[in-house]
């Protein structure tokens, strides 16, 4: 009788513990739904982004922008020079008829030359900033991916800690296997290592791009 009552209490306790363990609170259900939506958006966006293509496009664009700046920048400078030379020739002809007007024309030509050259230089500074931003796109993207890997690793570490502390409880031990999280942890580590080696590969690419850009400039 006493044994039976004890058994009832024990079974009751285990059942209640299991119910407590398997019940997913509303807060977590909501978090789960949010999480699923986030991960779906993440997956979709990653596919749409196509990072490798993005990086390759960005490197190519930076080189082409540099080449366009050099070519058209020289055209603008040549035109400024031509306008100035022509103005000086006209001023010399006017000077023969009126020394005063000729001098004014010459001063005006010089003023325009200075204004336009200054304007061109400031345009080049702005364009160079755009080129630098284009070059940096891939590095920025890689930084974000690194942040994501870091976030996932940190979430994994939290989970691992939680599972290990939970494993002490006999009821919980059978529900969850530690092996699974260990395997997951190893996957995250491998992914992070692969990512690191990709990053150093990209550094080389950036170096090559910069060397190429310098050649284009020269």
């Amino acid at each position, binding site marked *: 009788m006493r044994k039976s009552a004890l058994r009832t209490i024990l079974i009751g306790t285990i059942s209640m513990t299991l119910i*407590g*363990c398997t019940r*997913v*609170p509303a*807060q*977590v259900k909501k*978090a789960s739904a949010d999480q699923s939506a986030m*991960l779906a*958006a*993440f997956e979709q*966006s*990653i*596919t749409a982004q196509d990072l*490798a293509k993005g990086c390759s*496009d*960005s490197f190519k*664009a930076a080189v082409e*922008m540099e080449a366009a*700046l050099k070519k*058209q*920048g020289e*055209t*603008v400078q040549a035109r400024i020079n031509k*306008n100035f030379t022509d103005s000086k020739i006209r*001023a010399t*002809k*006017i000077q023969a008829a009126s020394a005063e*007007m000729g001098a004014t024309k010459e001063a005006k*030509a010089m003023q325009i030359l200075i204004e*336009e050259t200054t304007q061109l230089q400031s*345009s080049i500074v702005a364009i160079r900033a755009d080129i630098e931003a*284009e070059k940096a*796109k891939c590095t920025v*993207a*890689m930084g*974000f*991916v690194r*942040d*994501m*890997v870091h*976030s*996932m690793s940190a*979430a*994994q570490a*939290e*989970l691992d*800690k*939680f*599972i290990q502390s*939970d494993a002490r*409880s006999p009821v*919980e031990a059978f529900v*969850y296997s530690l092996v*699974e*999280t260990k395997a*997951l942890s190893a*996957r995250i580590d491998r*992914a992070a290592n692969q*990512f690191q080696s*990709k990053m150093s590969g990209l550094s080389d690419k950036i170096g090559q791009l910069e060397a190429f850009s310098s050649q284009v400039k020269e």
Partner: protein
Amino acid sequence: MNELIKAAKDLLSDLKGDYDALGESFAAETDLDKMNALDNQISQIGKDIVGLENKVLALEVAAKKSSFDPNELGSLASRMSEHRAETARVIKGHTESVEQAKYLASRVSTGAKLIGEVLRTIA
């Protein structure tokens, strides 16, 4: 963008034609007032040409820009970071529940799978 560049270049070609034609008129002119008027006109067209060449410069460089926008990844990265914070919060709030652990494990597993896919796209 390319149509804009083409339109600007067509306009440039017209302006250069006007500039050269007026330059020839100036060379043939002997009257001071007329020379003055022509010089003013030519100078103005010359300035317009330089202004337009500058616009072509900006357009040609802008046309080469890539459409790749890494900042779209930034919002994802911040959401992953929120995910990490949320994981920590949920663990703290529900340390008694093993079901939580299974739930979180499946989330982290999905995340790890996606990270793997990201890394493959970079390869």
